[in-house]
């Protein structure tokens, strides 16, 4: 196992990510799970910068940089081209940030999911437009600070639930994962690589500069996110069969919120409100996971 982890890396050192970037850890485990026979499609996001300046690339797989809105469409095109060449085993990995998935790229992703293209779509969610300087996106959690939602007007409205949207498309597999549990993340990407059809994996990616945390706390904060039930880890098969893959420790949400500078302005009543919301969402998830999936008997 150790030898497997240490050799044959597809993401190389020398990339241009900030210290403690979560997105690079996700890319590392995702590429390791998918293997060298893959094509990576990256829309405008942090990873456009991270993979390096032109003659060099930190990724040892072919990379297609596309426009912001087109990650799903470009991945479908690459898939069609590979199929025409008979390369049915080559995986197509679309790797987009939360802006390119939740806001700008949602229509192309929805189209690809509806056609059930054979692609793996990984969304690394750092909960704002971090590359351009921490602007609010629809993945920003409720009452968080960003530069466009300052502390006098923190973000109103809850975070968009992307897994619900993708589960509504009845794609074969969608899942959430967390970099603090790399074995779980590896297994989910491996699972997505084996399933034919659109697979969507939503991974929480801590951003030290945008979340205002010290770089060495990145893993710890994302571990707290799962254990406080803010970001539960589960998977959905065919949009119906919910499986919770990580039993959270029941720690209060305030532990997670107090560890980050972007929630420093929150008062006690704000934290109580967020705790209530998190408990409610967790209850819905528990009930869904207990429901019998719908089977077609013909």
């Amino acid at each position, binding site marked *: 196992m150790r030898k497997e982890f*240490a050799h044959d890396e597809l993401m190389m050192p020398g990339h241009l*990510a900030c210290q403690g970037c979560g997105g*690079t850890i996700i890319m*590392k485990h995702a590429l390791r799970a998918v293997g060298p026979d893959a094509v990576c499609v990256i829309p405008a996001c942090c990873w456009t910068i991270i993979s390096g300046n032109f*003659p060099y*690339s*930190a990724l040892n797989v072919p990379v297609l940089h596309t426009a912001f809105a087109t990650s799903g469409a470009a991945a479908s095109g690459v898939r069609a081209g590979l199929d025409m060449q008979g390369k049915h085993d080559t995986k197509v990995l679309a790797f987009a940030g939360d802006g390119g998935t939740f806001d700008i790229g949602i229509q192309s992703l929805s189209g690809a999911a509806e056609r059930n293209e054979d692609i793996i779509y990984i969304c690394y969610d750092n909960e704002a437009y971090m590359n351009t300087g921490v602007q609010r996106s629809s993945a920003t959690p409720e009452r968080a600070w960003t530069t466009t939602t300052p502390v006098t007007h923190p973000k109103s409205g809850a975070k968009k639930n992307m897994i619900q949207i993708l589960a509504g498309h009845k794609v074969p597999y969608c899942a959430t994962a967390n970099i603090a549990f790399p074995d779980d993340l590896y297994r989910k990407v491996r699972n997505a690589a084996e399933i034919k059809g659109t697979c969507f994996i939503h991974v929480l990616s801590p951003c030290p500069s945008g979340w205002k945390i010290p770089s*060495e706390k990145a893993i710890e904060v994302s571990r707290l996110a799962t254990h406080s039930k803010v970001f539960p880890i589960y998977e959905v098969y065919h949009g119906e069969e919910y499986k919770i893959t990580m039993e959270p420790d029941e720690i209060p949400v305030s532990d997670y919120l107090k560890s980050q500078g972007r929630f420093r302005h929150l008062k006690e009543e704000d934290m109580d409100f967020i705790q209530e919301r998190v408990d409610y969402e967790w209850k819905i998830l528990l009930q869904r996971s207990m429901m019998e999936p719908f089977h077609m008997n013909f």
Partner: protein
Amino acid sequence: MSKNTYFKHEGPWSDANDPLMCSDTGDWRTKRPIVDKDKCIFCGFCQIYCPVQVMEMVGDSHFEADLGFCKGCGICAQECPKQAITMVSEGEFVS
């Protein structure tokens, strides 16, 4: 900084031996991870969690960071289950 040997597999248009555009990210660092060889139990957590992929196995005994690329984020020191890694300020290594 160390010779960049990681970009050998680039396309035919690029000269991988040209040092001009290699990203030696080691010079971003303000703190350097120092591994205590006696405390290290060779579990590999630093390698798994390292965002830059610089922790390298030294034989079968311990891990060591490639200082040509290590950005000094400190995740390895934070996540080490035996506290075998300490972050030491770069100023102490200036001769």
